[in-house]
């Protein structure tokens, strides 16, 4: 049985990220002959095929030579299958980093060995830390251009470990790997040029690192998507509640709370097309039958009793994703799980200066790619968790009620001001 690792990559424009992703695909034999021929045709000036062309998908990207949108890539080894969200590093596209990080169990951050940790690296680490991506890998790329120098690697790695420690990452959740994506050193195959490095190659690490299903150990949470009522001759009275287990585990016989109302009932059965289950875990799509008919509908949250207290006023950290700025008083829609309610932004209390990573009080507004702290009021009580405790029910979207655009990713609580982001501050250089 092979399992699935979802990862995201991030780096500055010139760190060679597309080349690294191309190298992973190429060396795991995930690139097929016709794709390779297309790359060879498109490589300017002959020579070694430009592996970055494997992953730069849109015409506008190829014309500008940059990546402007998240691309999803797939590769597999006998141990594991990988879904890789390749996120652009260009500064105005930070929103894509947030998108890629939101589903990732692991993030690979790239730096150029010649320049080391740069401002953009700090920004990416800050975003990954805020979104609680469980594991980080620093890929120190272009080692061939610094003569595979061990001291250069250690200087960069130590600076990086300093940042991740400040963000609360445990030591075993972070590794730094010296590599050359262009030449292939330490991506899939061990490098003969860096005998001093005894750690795993990037792929060895990706294959062996434990996959932390987010919210695996968290209390049970189940946003109801759809009420299954066949009303057929075979199933005249069947009523089940379809959804994906967002956090924790549920067993037949468990007492659960129906939120936001707070009524209690028991799980009578866990149904799937393939038969009944005794228990269901985070990530599984199932149908729950309940002992009582309590008016459960799409938008209800079934939860382990005693958590996710419904509230109408709360604080949240936002990643603002839209050109239209956010100002206090804005009336928006908020999507939490399977429930959409109206929301008013009561106050914008802090903004993260993504240039210096300092936190600015009373910023007045948030603009695209800002991260900020807000106070929200919603039209109906929402059963929320703190993002840092249960990510699935501690996250939400803000949506423009007219245009329908997604405006922001929201994290319930105050992670922006609670985290020691100031320790990531640049030296004012």
């Amino acid at each position, binding site marked *: 049985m092979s399992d699935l690792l979802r990862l995201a990559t991030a780096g500055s424009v010139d760190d060679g990220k597309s080349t690294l992703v191309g190298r992973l695909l190429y060396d795991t034999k995930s690139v097929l002959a016709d794709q390779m021929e297309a790359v060879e045709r498109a490589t300017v000036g002959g020579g070694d095929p430009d592996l970055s062309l494997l992953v730069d998908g849109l015409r506008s990207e190829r014309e500008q030579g940059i990546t402007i949108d998240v691309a999803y890539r797939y590769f597999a080894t006998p141990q594991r299958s990988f879904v890789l969200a390749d996120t652009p590093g260009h500064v105005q596209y930070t929103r894509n980093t947030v998108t890629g990080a939101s589903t990732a169990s692991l993030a690979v951050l790239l730096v150029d060995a010649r320049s080391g940790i740069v401002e953009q690296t700090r920004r990416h680490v800050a975003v990954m830390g805020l979104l609680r991506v469980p594991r980080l890998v620093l890929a120190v790329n272009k080692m061939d251009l610094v003569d595979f120098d061990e001291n250069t690697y250690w200087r960069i790695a130590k600076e990086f470990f300093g940042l991740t420690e400040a963000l609360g990452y445990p030591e075993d959740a972070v590794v730094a790997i010296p590599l050359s994506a262009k030449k292939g050193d330490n991506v899939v195959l061990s490098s003969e040029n860096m005998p001093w490095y005894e750690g795993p190659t990037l792929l060895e690490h990706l294959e062996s690192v434990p996959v*932390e299903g987010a919210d695996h150990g968290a209390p049970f949470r189940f946003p109801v998507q759809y009420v299954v009522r066949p009303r057929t001759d075979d199933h005249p009275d069947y009523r089940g509640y379809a959804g994906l287990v967002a956090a924790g585990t549920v067993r037949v016989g468990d007492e659960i709370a129906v939120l936001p109302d707070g009524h209690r009932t028991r799980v009578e059965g866990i149904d799937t097309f393939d038969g009944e289950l005794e228990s269901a875990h985070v990530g599984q799509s199932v149908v729950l039958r309940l002992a009582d008919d309590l008016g459960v509908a799409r938008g209800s949250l079934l939860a382990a009793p005693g958590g996710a207290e419904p509230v109408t006023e709360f604080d949240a950290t936002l990643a603002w994703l839209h050109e239209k700025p956010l100002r206090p008083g804005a009336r928006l829609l908020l999507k939490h799980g399977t429930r959409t309610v109206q929301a008013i932004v009561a106050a914008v209390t802090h903004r993260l200066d993504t240039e210096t990573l300092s936190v600015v009080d009373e910023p007045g507004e948030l603009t695209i790619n800002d991260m900020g702290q807000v106070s929200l009021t919603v039209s109906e009580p929402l059963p929320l968790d703190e993002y840092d405790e249960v990510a699935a029910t501690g996250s939400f979207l803000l949506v423009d009620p007219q245009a329908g655009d997604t405006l922001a990713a929201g994290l319930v609580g105050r992670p922006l001001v609670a985290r020691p982001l100031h320790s990531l501050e640049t030296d004012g250089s």
Partner: protein
Amino acid sequence: MSAPTISQVDQLDALESEAIHVMREVAGEFDRPVILFSGGKDSMLLVHLARKAFWPAPIPFPVLHVDTGHNFDEVIAFRDAVVERYGLTLEVARVQDYIDDGRLEERADGTRNPLQTTPLLDAIAEHRHDAVFGGGRRDEERARAKERVFSLRTAFGAWEPSRQRPELWNLYNGRHKPGEHVRVFPLSNFTELDVWRYIAREGVELPSIYYAHTREVFARDGMWLTSGPWGGPRHGEETRTMSVRYRTVGDGSCTGAVESTAATLDEVLDEVRESRLTERGATRADDRLSEAAMEDRKREGYF
């Protein structure tokens, strides 16, 4: 606190649960969804997943076939059998009708795949579909690698890369204005190999032409094409009888067979594992038109 022990989740289970979640979101948030259904393997997977998503209730969506008129008989027979078996409502949009009354012109190269866009958009408008399930996968092609699971389309069906919404966690935003619709791709994270492994695991029935059979074919543009209502070999193109199978099923005029003796699911799985060509590169002339062929067609409202 030590990390909780993590039970390994099989990746096919993870992909299935994700696809079912997407389908239920659509059922919960849209008024008139439809499944694009050609009888091909990806659309058959959509039907299979929809059965699983809403069981024990029947599939709550109709299916729509954009019929180029260049069909394989086996596939049409299969399509009708599936519709009958699961009690589905079948809508058909026929390219032939558009050619007959002059709304579309036959192309010089005889392929009708690019002609599907207009009948598709008309059918979406006529039936007022607000969500359209497609079997597209991100591993198929570079432009598709940047596709969202919920892909907003304008009233003209156009895919505007710059207007695509960021997709965070598994919170899908399906809001759209009147006249706009959303294309939904539940198989986004499947690869071709995953599709075949899943078909094998689930025992999903497919049209017979996906398995090796003896067929009269001729070579054109490095592909093995078969004769049909869309024409046959041109002068100088020699016919051969050989064992072939299809990796994709589309317009007969531009969908090539591959030489194969893989007559069973296990043999097909082995062949897909070993293959050094993508399914589109191997067998679809329409994707070979240019480096950005798919991107351009998607912008015009293609699947």
